[in-house]
């Protein structure tokens, strides 16, 4: 079996295991894994930009938060939104935002791209944080979760955390399939060419700006799916969903898992979320509440990981495999 076949097999096995989790796990575990799967979707969407096209977006969380806010704003007070319309609407909102922001930022390269994606995302953050458009720094509560009915038949109940879990799982599988398909398509090959040698792509006749912009929009739309699911899970949205802490965490997830592999960032999301959870539950010791200052350890982890594992766990695996072969 080739390495690629092994990765796909591993992913499918994981999906199967995830499908069985609610039968064995308690509520807290199920909810943690719901969150992990949502982050995995988000990380995969960033991988499309970062790993496959070479666009280092430091403001990707903006599209995640935008969809969450879209749902919150579409939900009438004390009533439920319609799942079948609010999900596409929220995703469309993220896609439209990505189109507008992308139009400005995709014309930049390298370090400028990193800076302007961050700047525009922060602009959005301050828009929601400082103004009263959407609850300011406190955010908005979604009093009633969206309703998923067809006629009289309730397809699933989003107040039930198990239903939310399976919805997230379905979205994860669908996202993985969709991104794999896109990456194998003629469009996907253009993206790959742009990452390796954009200048040559231009001289071969490709209008690379258009392709990068479309990629940016697709990534934004998928991020929107994650944002919608997150809003459904927690019932609240706040400006932190747009913040750069999340954007930076996403970049770490992608790098940690191995960028340009799709499955890698999903794994990286799991590792990151579990690490965060672990650090946050650190006990107090010697008068210092380590759990409260968990970001200190997160920061140290980031510094070390960046120094020691440039290609993430995928790179580590390669190194170990290489060592094993040498000994044999």
């Amino acid at each position: 079996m080739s390495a690629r076949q092994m990765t796909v097999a591993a992913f499918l096995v994981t999906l199967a295991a995830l499908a069985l989790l609610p039968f064995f796990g308690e509520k807290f575990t199920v909810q943690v894994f719901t969150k992990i799967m949502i982050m995995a979707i988000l990380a995969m969407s960033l991988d499309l930009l970062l790993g496959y096209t070479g666009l280092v977006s430091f403001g990707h969380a903006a599209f995640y938060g935008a969809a969450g806010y879209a749902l919150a704003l579409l939900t009438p007070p004390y009533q439920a939104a319609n799942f079948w319309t609010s999900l596409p609407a929220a995703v469309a909102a993220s896609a439209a935002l990505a189109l507008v922001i992308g139009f400005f930022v995709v014309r930049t390269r390298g370090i400028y791209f990193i800076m302007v994606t961050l700047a525009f995302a922060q602009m959005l953050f301050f828009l929601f944080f400082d103004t009263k458009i959407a609850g300011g720094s406190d955010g908005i509560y979604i009093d009633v979760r969206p309703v998923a009915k067809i006629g009289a038949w309730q397809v699933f109940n989003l107040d039930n955390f198990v239903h939310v879990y399976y919805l997230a799982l379905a979205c994860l599988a669908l996202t993985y399939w969709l991104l794999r398909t896109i990456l194998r398509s003629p469009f996907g090959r253009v993206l790959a060419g742009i990452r390796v040698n954009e200048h040559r792509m231009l001289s071969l006749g490709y209008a690379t700006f258009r392709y990068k912009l479309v990629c940016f929009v697709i990534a934004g739309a998928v991020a929107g799916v994650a944002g919608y699911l997150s809003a459904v899970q927690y019932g609240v949205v706040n400006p932190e969903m747009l913040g750069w802490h999340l954007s930076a965490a996403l970049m770490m997830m992608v790098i940690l898992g191995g960028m340009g592999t799709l499955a890698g960032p999903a794994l990286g999301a799991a590792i990151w979320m579990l690490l965060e959870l672990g650090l946050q539950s650190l006990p107090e010791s010697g008068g210092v509440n380590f759990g409260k200052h968990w970001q200190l350890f997160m920061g140290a982890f980031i510094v070390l990981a960046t120094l020691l594992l440039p290609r993430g766990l995928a790179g580590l695996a390669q190194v170990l495999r290489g060592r094993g072969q040498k000994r044999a």
Partner: protein
Amino acid sequence: MDFHTFLIQLLNGVQYGLLLFLVSSGLTLVFGIMGIINVAHGSFYMIGAYLAWSLTGGLGSFWIALPAGIAITLVIGLLLEVLVIRKLYDRDHLYQVLLTYGLILIFEELRSMIWGDDVRGVPIPEVLSASFPLTETQSYPVYRLWISAVCLVVAGLMVWVIQKTRLGMIIRAGSANREMVQSLGIDVRLVYRLVFATGITLAALAGMIASPVSAVFPGMGNQVLIVCFVVIVIGGMGSVKGAMLASLLIGLVDTFGKVLHLEIAGVKLLPELSSMTVYLLMAIVLLWRPEGVFGRRP
């Protein structure tokens, strides 16, 4: 708006712009000369402000706190370069961004553990606490004029060092061709160390002198960093000239945006959306010259 109010806002805008220049010049120099993007640069602005607060309190005088704070930051910068930053040369910008972001988290938490999370204030030093009378009712604080003066002096010093001294020549040569300078027997690493330490000290200095007029609060580093990015995008990465131009522009646009009233088709734009003006400016520049006004055309 009457003339005196206009003058006050003009002075405020210029002062804010010059302060921005002080902070962003460090960032753009480090990138232009060493090729390193340090997103923790804003954290040093914050560290400077907190140092000013704690040292003024501890040592009793703002004027002792200033040089002490500068010395401390220089040492931190040198240590940081030796321990961590030097591993970033020749690495992808992505890794530089992530690693220095990790540093931001570390600094934030250390600040929280050492100085707490409360908002602090630093008293304006007595000798500068007077106000310049403009009219019978309006006056302008001398301290703000002093801030602008300090920034201008530092800017002048920077230009002088880079253009007129041997060190500056080495720095300029080193940024263009590192290997060649090294083969001439000059230890480029030492130069880099110095440049980095100076860069972050500029940010800290800005934080220190700004602290009496702006609050000292936890998020101040991140806030100023984003504006620095906008300065650099507009002015061009690596260009001190561009940083000055962009900083003044942003300083004026931001300041006037907060006091003007603008309503179009019943929609209140200013001063309600004044925080957007700077980003709008950036968007316009991106359409016109994506590499910045004085940036190098790719």
